[in-house]
């Protein structure tokens, strides 16, 4: 039976720490109270201790939500473990809440695991507003009845012993508290605080360090909760960042020099980051008047010889489709990054979903073959941008890079890259064009043509989005249009010949193959491992190239009795009375694979705005196996 920590006398700190393989910790507050910074710092300290981490941001839907509201809950989930952590995990094991209201949404969404420890700011019990006092007591008592362990902590009162504005300091107090609970090194925590506030100087660093120490000491004196998650020492230097920062760094490292964007959630932070740093390598971030202008501005820059990128999310991607078709038709290299969010329409701007796969592949008008790549973790965000630029310039076409809201804000450590000059784009070619080179001198085997850019003597021509011949003259001849379409299509086949079959992870043959794409990789692989541990023969395959798709995928499927995709998008369930084999709407990847491989592929998906949990996937797999 749970007990109320507040009624216990302070316990001595000598208690031994319980050793764990991993834990899921959440910090939730009102928007603006710093729970996100607390979570990020805690995760970074854990990473520096050598633990695997994955963070998930808890983002309120409103910019300035009212205080103490369910909608305003803002914070961070940190999953930390002894080994590598590849996803946000299942329910939380320990939650720090700055008020009781922010907990309600987490409880409703089943984010608190059974027996979860709740560290709750206690000041509300003595609030002047009787309604707040009543609400606080009600939630606290319900938590206790529900089997949770509640520790009421006078966070703000303790902070006031050290700083004047407790509302802004609580997050660092909590950071100290958590570091003590999880047996982190205090010195490391203080160092991390100094790094976090380095730009703001000692006047900010010192009081925040004092708060961390205060939290640590309070936990030492008053809490008997001690955990230890032994680290597997990393042998190499790592970077810890979120996916959008990794995308921005990838743009810098790819040698692209122009990024044209229009603000949209959750893509915007990538362009914020680039706005800060891109100039240092000679790049420019252009904030256009709209998404269409952002895309066509990038097309102009690419046409002039510098591959450009435009970064957006779902609704912005829709607007860019017109420009994407033009770039495919005029054969101009272009990288389009779509950090997907919940849809359709304005949908759920801050929530995770993988809903744009089909519009990425087929969204523009007419047949416009383009490359679609999906990133599956933070490290992949970095390297895929570099790959996308290279493919775009090699094949003179559009490469769409799909990320999503969970990768955008989630943090994960990965090996620090060694800079390679081959990542960079070559300088703009201004050498004279010999003879009668044509802008669309398509190779009959590959569909590829020489790229000619303005400034090259002897190469003048006029590109057009209209049907054209090899010289870029507008054509009305049906045979010439057919030739152009064939050449553009062939480019995908040419790229496809260079792709490796994605590996099957887990069993190489057996009962069930799970196929996924994008940010669900870690959760899928973890779920498969849990099922395999019971002796089931299950494997998983994760696709990076969606269009074109590598060969060998069908062969892999045929080694398994059943195949299904797991995706963070919609599919009809056959359990629904209205749904049958003839009207079922499949998940996006399942639809593509069924068409390509002629294999009976089942699918499961969810559109709850959250990253898929390994536990949910595990249940789906078990049901499929039974």
């Amino acid at each position, binding site marked *: 039976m749970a007990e109320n920590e507040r009624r216990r006398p302070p316990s001595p700190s000598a208690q031994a720490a319980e050793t764990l393989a991993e834990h899921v910790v959440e910090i939730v507050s009102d928007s603006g109270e710093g729970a996100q910074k607390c979570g990020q710092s805690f995760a970074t300290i854990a990473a520096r201790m050598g633990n695997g981490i994955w963070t998930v941001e808890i983002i309120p839907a409103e910019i300035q939500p009212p205080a103490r509201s369910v909608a305003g809950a803002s914070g961070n989930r940190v999953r930390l473990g002894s080994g590598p952590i590849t996803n946000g995990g299942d329910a939380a094991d320990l939650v720090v809440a700055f008020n009781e209201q922010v907990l309600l949404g987490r409880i409703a969404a089943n984010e608190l695991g059974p027996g979860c420890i709740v560290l709750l700011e206690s000041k509300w019990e003595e609030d002047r507003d009787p309604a707040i006092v009543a609400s606080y007591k009600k939630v606290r008592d319900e938590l206790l009845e529900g089997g949770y362990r509640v520790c009421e902590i006078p966070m703000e009162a303790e902070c006031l012993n050290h700083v004047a504005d407790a509302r802004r300091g609580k997050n660092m107090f909590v950071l100290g508290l958590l570091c003590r609970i999880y047996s982190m090194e205090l010195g490391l925590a203080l160092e991390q605080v100094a790094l976090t506030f380095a730009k703001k100087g000692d006047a900010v660093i010192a009081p925040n360090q004092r708060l961390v120490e205060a939290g640590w000491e309070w936990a030492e004196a008053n809490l008997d909760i001690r955990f230890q998650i032994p680290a597997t020492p990393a042998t190499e230097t*790592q970077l810890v960042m979120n996916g959008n920062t990794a995308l921005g760094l990838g743009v810098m490292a790819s040698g692209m*020099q122009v990024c044209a964007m229009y603000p949209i959630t959750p893509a915007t932070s990538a362009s914020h980051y680039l706005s800060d740093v891109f100039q240092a390598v000679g790049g420019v971030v252009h904030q256009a008047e709209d998404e269409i202008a952002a895309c066509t501005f990038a097309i102009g820059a690419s046409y002039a010889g510098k591959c450009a990128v435009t970064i957006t999310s779902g609704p912005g991607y829709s607007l860019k489709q017109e420009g994407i078709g*033009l770039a495919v038709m005029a054969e101009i290299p272009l990288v389009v990054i779509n950090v997907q969010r919940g849809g359709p329409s304005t949908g759920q701007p801050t929530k995770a979903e993988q809903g744009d796969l089909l519009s990425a592949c087929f969204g523009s008008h007419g047949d416009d073959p383009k490359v679609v790549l999906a990133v599956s973790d933070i490290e992949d965000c970095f390297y895929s941008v570099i790959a996308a630029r290279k493919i775009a310039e090699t094949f003179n076409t559009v490469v769409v890079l799909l990320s999503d809201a969970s990768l955008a804000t989630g943090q994960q450590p990965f090996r620090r890259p060694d800079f390679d000059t081959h990542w960079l784009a070559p300088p703009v070619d201004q050498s004279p064009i010999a003879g009668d080179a044509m802008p669309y001198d398509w190779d009959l085997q590959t569909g590829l043509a020489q790229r000619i850019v303005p400034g090259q003597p002897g190469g003048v021509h006029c590109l057009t989005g209209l049907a054209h011949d090899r010289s870029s003259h507008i054509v009305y001849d049906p045979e010439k249009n057919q030739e152009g379409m064939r050449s553009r299509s062939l480019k995908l086949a040419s790229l496809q010949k260079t792709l490796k079959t994605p590996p099957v992870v887990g069993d190489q043959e057996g009962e069930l193959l799970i196929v996924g794409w994008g940010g669900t990789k870690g959760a899928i692989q973890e779920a498969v491992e849990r099922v395999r541990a019971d002796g089931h023969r299950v494997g998983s395959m994760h696709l990076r190239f969606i269009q074109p798709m590598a060969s060998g995928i069908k062969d892999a499927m045929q080694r398994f009795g059943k195949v299904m995709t797991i995706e963070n998008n919609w599919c009809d369930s056959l359990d629904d009375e209205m749904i049958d084999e003839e009207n079922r709407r499949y998940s996006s990847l399942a639809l593509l694979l069924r068409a390509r491989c002629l294999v009976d592929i089942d699918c499961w998906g969810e559109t709850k705005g959250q990253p898929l949990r390994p536990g949910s996937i595990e249940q789906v797999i078990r049901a499929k196996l039974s």
Partner: protein
Amino acid sequence: MAILTAVQRLCRDEKLPREKIVFVSGIGCSSRFPHYMNAYGFHGLHGRALPVAEGIKMARPDLNVFVNTGDGDCCSIGAGHWIHAIRYNMNMTVMLHDNQVYGLTKKQASPTSPIGLKSNTTPRGSYLDAMDPLNITLAGANVSFVAQAPDWIPELLYEIIALGFRHRGFSFIRILQRCPEFVPTMLDPWMQDPDNLRLLDHEDGIRLSPNLARTYRNQEAHDPANIDRARELASGNDGVPIGILYRNESVPCYEDVLKPDGLMPPEIVGGRLEAEFDKYTVKPAE
């Protein structure tokens, strides 16, 4: 054809290497223009010529960028881009081929069609007053060059386009162009009675030749620095203004403000990237 002749002459007179010229267009009759020039060209999407041209200029300030656009392309589907292009003030020469009707789609009303114009979409006559591209441009933030030229006075057309080209910034030239197919007589009153045109002459603008000065008596010594008078002229109460309405050399160009430094050598990119990596580096505790 008159515009083509004027622009070809300009490129020759300015000794522009053909490979350093890019003509950018959207969609419409005007937008076929790049195909007729022996230079680099980009014939893209309806209404989107300006952002493409901006991207080109940002990436490659060394290129001479011209934009050919029409009254539908610029003032209708591309109106948002137009207003912002004025504000960016990138160094390019924009020719608005304004024939006051949609020609490529075979006669529909355009935003600059006069009220009462009968077209396929306005069989009972267009309902709305025409939009005034000159006044709208003159009202834009960072406006730096606004002119109007007729396509039937080759000498003036050339002079105006040449001054626009030599102006550093966003040079907006509305060209009154006849559509021989769908509204062949629309500009007749302006063509046939020289007094309906008001020719602007100034030592800082166009100097009228004696020949033109004799033919066109409705003249004004208009200082292009005077934006208030430019706006009055644009409203056309004293006749259709022809010449340089406004010019301000001191408005900064976006490509100069953003200052793209161009491709850095790999060792510099590498160094700056490593400095960024340092910010996110986590070394495991000893």
